[in-house]
C-alpha cells in the first residue's frame, strides 16, 4: 500500500484511503488516540499558549480574550531587548553554555579515549561503573553536596585552607559560580556522556590499528590518526545536538545554586523566565523571553548543522 502525501493524490482519494486504513488497522488507530491526545494537550496547547507572548495575558480573560500588546504584538520583545538585565542574562547564558562546550564536551571524549586504551577488562569495568555512578545522583542531592562542600567549613574549603589560601563561602562569590557549575557538571556527566563515544570506539576496525603499528606509530599517534578520525562522525553529531541547546542551560541546577549575590554571573535566560513568570506572575513578558530563547536555539542549531555539513559531510538533516 503506497500512502505518500507528497505524491499529490487528490484529497478525496487520500481520505478514502485513510478510512480504508482505519478499517484495516483498527488497533493502530485506537492506539493513536491517547498519543494524539497527549500531544494535543501537553505539546500543541502550550505552543498555542505562546500567543500570550504577543498579548497582555490575564488568566481570567484566557489566551484568546486577552488584548494584543503594543508594537503590533511585539511589545514584550521590545521591552525585553531594552530591559536593563537583557545584556547580563544573555552574556551569562552564552558564557555558561560556551564554557560547557569548551570543557564539558571534550572531557567525555577524552575519558572515552583513555578508557579505550585500558588493557585490563576488569579495570575497565571498574572505571566505567565508578564514572557512571554520579549520573544517578539527583540534581537536588548534587546541589546539596555542593552547598555543604563549598561552605566555609566544607571539604573544598578544608583543602583550600590546607594549601594556605583563605576560606570563604564560595557560593556567594560571583566569580566562582561558573567554575563550580561547570566542574560539578563534568563530575556528574562525564562518565555517562562517554558511553556513546565508547560505543563508537568499539566499532573501529582493528586492522587499522595493526596497520598503524606495523608502520611504527606510537600509541599516542594512533589515537590522533586512527581513533579520533574513527569517531569523528559521532563527535560531529553530538556537537550539533549540543549547539542546539546553546541557550538553554540547566536552569534547575542554577536555581538550586544561585542567590542574589551571584545573579551578576549566574542569572541566565531561563532562570529569569522562571522568576519573572512564576514568582512575579509576569506571564506574557516571561513567555516572550522564553520564546526568544527557543527561537535563537533553533537558529543556532540550523547554523551549526549547515556548518558541519559543509565541513564534514555529517549532519542531522
Amino acid at each position, binding site marked *: 500500500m503506497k500512502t505518500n502525501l507528497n505524491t499529490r493524490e487528490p484529497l478525496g482519494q487520500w481520505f478514502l484511503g485513510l478510512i480504508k486504513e482505519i478499517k484495516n488497522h483498527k488497533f493502530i488507530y485506537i492506539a493513536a488516540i491517547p498519543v494524539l491526545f497527549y500531544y494535543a494537550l501537553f505539546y500543541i496547547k502550550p505552543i498555542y499558549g505562546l500567543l500570550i507572548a504577543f498579548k497582555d495575558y490575564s488568566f481570567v480573560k484566557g489566551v484568546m480574550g486577552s488584548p494584543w500588546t503594543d508594537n503590533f504584538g511585539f511589545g514584550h520583545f521590545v521591552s525585553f531587548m531594552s530591559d536593563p538585565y537583557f545584556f547580563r542574562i544573555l552574556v551569562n547564558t552564552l558564557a555558561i553554555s560556551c564554557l560547557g562546550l569548551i570543557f564539558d564536551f571534550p572531557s567525555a571524549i577524552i575519558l572515552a579515549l583513555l578508557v579505550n586504551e585500558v588493557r585490563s577488562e576488569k579495570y575497565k569495568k571498574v572505571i566505567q561503573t565508578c564514572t557512571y555512578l554520579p549520573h544517578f545522583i539527583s540534581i537536588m542531592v548534587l546541589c546539596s553536596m555542593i552547598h555543604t562542600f563549598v561552605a566555609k567549613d566544607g571539604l573544598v574549603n578544608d583543602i583550600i585552607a590546607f594549601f594556605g589560601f583563605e576560606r570563604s563561602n564560595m557560593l556567594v562569590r560571583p566569580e566562582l559560580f561558573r567554575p563550580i557549575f561547570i566542574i560539578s557538571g563534568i563530575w556528574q556527566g562525564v562518565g555517562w556522556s562517554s558511553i556513546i563515544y565508547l560505543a563508537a570506539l568499539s566499532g573501529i576496525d582493528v586492522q587499522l590499528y595493526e596497520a598503524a603499528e606495523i608502520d611504527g606509530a606510537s600509541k599516542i599517534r594512533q589515537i590522533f590518526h586512527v581513533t579520533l578520525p574513527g569517531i569523528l562522525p559521532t563527535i560531529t553529531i553530538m556537537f550539533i545536538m549540543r549547539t542546539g541547546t546553546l541557550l538553554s542551560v540547566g536552569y534547575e541546577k542554577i536555581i538550586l545554586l544561585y542567590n542574589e549575590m551571584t545573579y551578576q554571573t549566574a542569572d541566565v535566560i531561563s532562570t529569569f523566565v522562571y522568576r519573572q513568570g512564576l514568582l512575579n506572575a509576569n506571564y506574557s513578558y516571561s513567555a516572550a523571553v522564553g520564546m526568544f530563547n527557543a527561537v535563537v*536555539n533553533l537558529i543556532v542549531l540550523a547554523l551549526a548543522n549547515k556548518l558541519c555539513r559543509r565541513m564534514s559531510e555529517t549532519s542531522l538533516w
Partner: protein
Amino acid sequence: MKRVSTGDKIFYIVNNIILFLMIAVCVYPLLYVIFASFSKPDKLMQFSGALLYPLGFDTGAYKEVLSNSMVWTSYLNTIIYVVFGTLTALIMTILSAYILSRRGIKIKKLLNVLLISSMFFSGGMIPTYITIKSYHMLNTIWAIILPPAISAMNVIVMRTSFAALPPSLEEAAAIDGISEYQFLVKMILPLSKSVLAVIALYYGVALWNSWFSAAIYLDKRSMYPLQLYLREVLINSSTDSMTTGVAEGDKVAVSETIKYATIIVSTVPILCVYPFLQKYFVKGVMVGSVKG
C-alpha cells in the same frame, strides 16, 4: 606476546594513573558523605580535611531522619509518582513506538512530525504552566505524571528496537491471522523485554529525580515528593523539624550529620539497584545512539 615500546609503556602507566584518579574523584565525594553521616557530630565539627573513615560511630542522625514523618510522607509520595508515572509513560511510549514501527500507516507521518519537533521546540515553561493550570491540574498527581509521559528520545529508542525485530515475525502473524493488538502484546512485547526495562528505568529515574515540576505545580506540603522535601532540608538548611529532641547547644553540629544522613537515605535506593541495572542503562544509550 606483542612487544611494547618504552614510549607506549609510559603511556599505559600514565593512563592508568589518570583513570585511577578519575575513579577517586567520582567516588570519594559519596564516600565522604557516607563517612560524615555516621560520624559523631561534635567530632565532625572540629575535624578539617578529607575523611577517610567515620569519626566515631553514631547512628543518631539516621534515627532523627527516619523518625521524621515528613521524610516518610515525601518518600511515599515519590514512590506513588514514580510507579504511576512510569506505568503511564511506558504505556504511552509503547503505543507511540508501535505505531511508528509499522510500515505504511498514514498517521505515522503526523506522529513523526510531532515527535521530532518536540525534540527541538516546545511551548516553554510559562505557557506549559498556564496550560496545566487551565486544566485545573495544579495540586494533583496528574501535573506530575502526565506532562513527562512521552519523551521523544525514549520513543525513538523503543521504535528502533521494535523495528529491528525480524520482518518474518509479522508475516507469520499475518498468516496466523492474529490481530494487531495480539501481535503487539503476545509477540513484540515479550521479545522486547530488555528495551522495556531500559525505558522504564529511564522514566523511573527521571521521575525519582524530578523536583521542578513539583515545585511549580504543587504547593501542598503533604504532596511534596522526596526531592522537594530535600530542598527544604538540604538547600534551605531548615533541619529544625528534625532536631526537636536535641539540646540547643548541639543543634548546629547535629544538623550537619542530619544533612549527610538525609542525602544517604534519599540516595540509597538508587545506589542499591544501580550496580545490577547498569548494563541495561548503558544498553539504552547504545540503542539510542545507533539511530538517534
